[in-house]
């Protein structure tokens, strides 16, 4: 059965996920999203995966959440505090959420994974390193290329041609 740390982390993670979507201000919403991402990092610590947990904190909480925060600050003030949603859709969405949670939860509870337990030691970071440089090396190189391509692509997308043309004209 779950212990107190697990329950606290579950409450923080799920509560701040709801807060991220439902808080009126987008800035507080993105701070709540940081809570969700940090809570998932805490679950990774509980699963004896400290390397993935620290990666999660460094990449998600450290860079993605801050990037989102800065993007929110670029949007004008009225839009940050305005909730844009349909009232009718909201009830349908809540129904969809409950159907997904109950049906998937029932499938998992009935599937027999309750009986899965392990006493074996967790795989440590050496195994991950060996995986990366042996079996998964083409995927690692591909991932690097995708990251470089996406960063270049996002820089090209966000470039302001009108400002550049003005500067060239001056």
């Amino acid at each position: 059965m779950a212990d107190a740390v697990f329950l606290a982390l579950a409450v923080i993670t799920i509560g701040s996920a709801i807060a991220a979507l439902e808080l009126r201000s987008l800035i507080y919403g993105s701070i709540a999203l940081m809570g969700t991402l940090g809570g998932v990092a805490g679950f990774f610590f509980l699963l004896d995966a400290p390397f993935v947990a620290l990666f999660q904190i460094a990449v998600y909480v450290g860079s993605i959440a801050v990037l989102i925060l800065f993007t929110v600050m670029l949007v004008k003030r009225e839009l940050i505090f305005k909730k844009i949603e349909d009232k009718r859709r909201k009830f349908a969405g809540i129904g969809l959420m409950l159907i997904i949670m109950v049906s998937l939860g029932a499938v998992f509870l009935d599937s027999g994974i309750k009986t899965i337990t392990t006493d074996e030691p967790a795989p440590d970071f050496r195994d991950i390193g060996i995986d990366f440089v042996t079996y998964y090396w083409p995927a690692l190189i591909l991932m690097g290329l995708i990251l470089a391509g996406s960063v270049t692509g996002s820089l090209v997308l966000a470039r302001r041609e009108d400002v550049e043309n003005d500067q060239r004209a001056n």
Partner: protein
Amino acid sequence: MTSELIDFTLVSVALLGIGIYGLAVKRNFIRMLFAVEIIINAANLNIVAFGRFLPHSGGQTMALFSIAIAAAEVAVGLSLIIVAYRMYRNVDIADFRSLKG
């Protein structure tokens, strides 16, 4: 370790449900990106939990790949938000009409 696989799986199912609710209800581009992030995190949590209980290092390796690809996705998504905001002065996806096929 006192928590079992089913506990982590149920938390992951809850996060998936919240993320799908966000994608279905919200019309704000930035909030929809939040929902996508929550869904990706639910998937990562599931992968690492199953990898721990097998036990196999492939789960953690796959989660690291997934986190890196999600970082790329967020970078592109945020720059798309900036471009769309510059064109329409709004973040409501109902306003992005010229994207309609």
